[in-house]
């Protein structure tokens, strides 16, 4: 290519009888290299060391001299072209921005503490009732019932600690935990009223309540999810094996895709 360009230059200008000498001698540029320098010059990125060679070439090459003028026109045209204003995206994208971290970090640390407390409670109840036995209830004696309770308490403690670390999974814990707390709260109230349980025992359930509240804070203040699926992937279901009623209908016209996308994305719902 550079040889072609050089030959072209020689053809146009005819300033040399020996192309080989032009290509090898110091400080000589072919047209392509010269134009690259001229282009860089227009951007203020020219290599000063090549400046003499460029001037030498321009002195002998009207085609490149002319090209420089044309390139300058194109450059000016580009830089003065009216820039069309794009849409304002701030409200659309802000929900994805990272959330304040300090409160969240505190909540995570507290959640670990609550998890540890819950594990300790579970372990204590295991030790405390180890000697009991006798009364059978629903096919298990009291010892086994308390084993089940202890296992559940230990599991919740582990879930709190793990959730404080893998915060993404915390949201999945909330429905089960919430239901558990509601049922336990109602039953505890009834048992307290009927004198079937000591208030101290019920008080230990406060740890669960605290853990739930902290889990809620951590999962609600979490950073937006990482790379999200492409807007189009949501608006236009892939021709895959899931034509369920839940998926949005394919956008009929390409111009209309903004509408369904805006409705589909949870991030934008927050913005509204």
């Amino acid at each position, binding site marked *: 290519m550079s040889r*072609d360009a050089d*030959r*072209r230059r020689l*053809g*146009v200008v005819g300033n040399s009888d020996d192309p080989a000498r032009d290509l090898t001698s110091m400080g000589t540029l072919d047209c392509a290299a010269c*134009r*690259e320098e*001229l*282009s*860089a010059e*227009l*951007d203020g*990125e020219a290599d000063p060391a090549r400046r003499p060679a460029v001037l030498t070439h321009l002195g002998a090459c*009207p*085609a490149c001299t*002319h*090209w420089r003028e*044309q*390139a300058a026109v*194109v*450059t000016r*045209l*580009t*830089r003065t*072209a*009216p*820039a*069309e204003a*794009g*849409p*304002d*995206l*701030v409200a*659309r*994208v*802000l929900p*994805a*921005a*990272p*959330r*304040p*971290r*300090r409160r969240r970090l505190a909540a995570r640390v507290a959640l670990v503490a609550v998890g540890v407390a819950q594990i300790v409670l579970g372990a204590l109840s295991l030790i405390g009732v180890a000697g009991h036995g006798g009364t059978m209830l629903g096919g298990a004696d009291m010892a086994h019932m308390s084993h089940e309770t202890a296992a559940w308490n230990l599991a919740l403690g582990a879930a709190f600690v793990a959730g404080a670390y893998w915060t993404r999974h915390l949201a999945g814990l909330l429905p089960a935990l919430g239901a558990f707390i509601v049922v336990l709260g109602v039953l505890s109230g009834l048992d307290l009223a009927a004198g079937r349980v000591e208030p101290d025992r019920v008080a230990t359930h406060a740890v669960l309540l605290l853990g739930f509240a902290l889990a809620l804070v951590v999962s609600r203040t979490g*950073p*937006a*999810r*990482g*790379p*999200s699926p*492409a*807007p*189009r*992937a949501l608006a236009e279901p892939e*021709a895959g094996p899931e034509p369920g009623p839940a998926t949005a209908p394919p956008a009929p016209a*390409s*111009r209309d*895709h*903004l509408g369904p*996308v805006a409705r589909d994305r949870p*991030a934008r719902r927050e913005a509204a």
Partner: protein
Amino acid sequence: MDDAVITDAALAARDGDRAAAARFVELTQQQVWRLLVHLADHGVAADLAQETYERAFGSLRRFRAEAPARTWLLAIARRVAADHLRRRARRPVDPAPIQDGDEPLTGTRPGDVAEGIALRLAVDALPPDRREAFVLTQMLGLGYAEAAVVAGCPIGTVRSRVARARADLVEALGAGAENPEAVSREP
């Protein structure tokens, strides 16, 4: 547009400052949008810009300001555009693209409009590599070094792509009509 201001906004946004995040978007969204208009197309640029910011916010935690935030963001926008083009290429039925660029721009002289449209069409007709280098350096005003970071290539490559893009545009816009053989690509 100050790179330092943008980078400061990005760092504050990383630490949860929502106002800084809004400022970061305000300061950069026009450039992101313009890049996407030229790398992908006008009709999807807004969606792709949104995806760019969502990706950027998602990985902001790992942003260490080793490069200016604007460069970092534009590199993400470039990947979003590349992903979009790849997805579109996989799609069996590709709807015919409608050129929004044909709409007249307001507040400009008729001559400017014609020139502007001719320029935009010529830029959009450039080969992708050259178009990318040209848009980054000429329309977004990036230096060659910054453009090289965004495009993930050596500076020399940006340099030669910009020069070739200019040559293509000189040819396409007919600026060399008076001296055709001077800009002809064939010997």
